């Protein structure tokens, strides 16, 4: 029996807001509503990293949330995929270059699918999740190395910074 084929039948989603404006989060919740009803694909919004498969991140990574983002990513058991949901999570969006945040979540954790839009449409989110499921099926149970563990944080202007650490280990994921 091929167990991997059941992954795309029951993707459990963990949704994390890394300091966004809540616009994309509203659209994610709209996916659960009767109009879009993503539960018909077996998706559940679990809220528990230890039991989920898909990490759905919204918002630019603020300096407050980046440690938690990596922590949550490390707690999801493999196989797992990460979706950057919205312009902020993909590139930093309108917050890019501000003193309190970073440009997108891919500086901290490896991202599989980028969903554009500010805020994203529910249709786009569903499409992104469906693409993520195709990736999820090809992934293995092997331990993915946590980005955070690979490099010591830089001390920069009296604050810890882990900027650009994803670049250094990206070849391992591709």
């Amino acid at each position: 029996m091929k167990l991997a084929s059941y992954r795309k039948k029951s993707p459990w989603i963990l949704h994390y807001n890394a300091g966004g404006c809540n616009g994309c989060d509203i659209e994610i919740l709209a996916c659960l509503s009767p109009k879009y009803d993503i539960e018909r694909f077996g998706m559940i919004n679990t809220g528990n990293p230890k039991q989920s498969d898909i990490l759905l991140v919204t918002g630019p990574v603020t300096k407050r949330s980046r440690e938690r983002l990596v922590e949550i990513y490390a707690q999801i058991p493999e196989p797992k995929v990460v979706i950057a949901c919205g312009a902020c999570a993909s590139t930093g969006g309108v917050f890019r270059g501000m003193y309190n945040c970073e440009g997108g979540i891919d500086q901290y954790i490896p991202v599989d699918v980028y969903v554009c839009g500010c805020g994203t449409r529910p249709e786009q989110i569903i499409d992104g999740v469906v693409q993520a499921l195709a990736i999820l099926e090809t992934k293995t149970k092997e331990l993915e190395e946590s980005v955070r563990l690979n490099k010591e944080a830089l001390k920069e202007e009296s604050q810890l910074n882990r900027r650009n650490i994803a670049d250094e280990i990206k070849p391992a994921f591709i």
Partner: protein
Amino acid sequence: MLLILLAPVIGGLVYGFERIIKARMQRRIGPPLLQPFYDFFKLADKRKMIVHSAHAFLGIMHFVSLWFALGVLLLGGDLILVIFLHLLSTALLILAAYSTRSIFSHLGANRTAISILAYEPVLIIIAVSIFMLTGSFDAAAAFQSEQPLLFKMPLAFIALLLVLPIKLKKSPFDVAEAHQELTGGVELEFSGIFYEAIYTAKWLDYVFCYALVYLFAGNDVLLGAGLIVFTFFYLNALDNSTARVSYKQMLRFSLTVSFSLAFINLLINSLT
């Protein structure tokens, strides 16, 4: 006998059907009927992560002891024994939750312990009422009684209906699980194949609760089926239409309304 062996499968089907019914009540389409089994197979394929070995072991023992309690109930064993075996299985889960360092897990364990306090006295009073009527604590006596117990102890049935949502962690009494607030409570720290034990134990709980409901039908199979279908729709309608109450409200409601209903029923049974 076959029912005991197939109990997880039946419970899974009940759970899948329940998710469809709940979705239809909200005008959604809902997942496929076999969705719980897809979840099951997917969880088997996840990487194994455990907090520590005793935690995982207690989780599996929770499943085993619950199945054992269900087996004793379906074989017509002692009702008091069944209730305490069920208590044991829940206690194992609470121990597992306390053995981790997660604060959510501890909160969930606290609330599960409180919900035991809410439903356990009512179940025991119902068992004593059955003893008063049939002269035996055996479930077999209730299953074989000529006249359905429902008509002799309707108040006890209402009391059972009021505590079943606590037992199955349904709204308005779902403080123990509290999805998105405690994110599962006691089951929080389980993952992968070890979460499967907890997930399947939930299905067993469905079979257990519907077997308790069936006790009230005596040897009337049609009435039993009717009661189970009624309870199923009642639970889902209640789950969809109510909001979560706090544990204090739950405890107060259960110990005043449900407990006194069951107790009045016991008084009437013992007087007549």
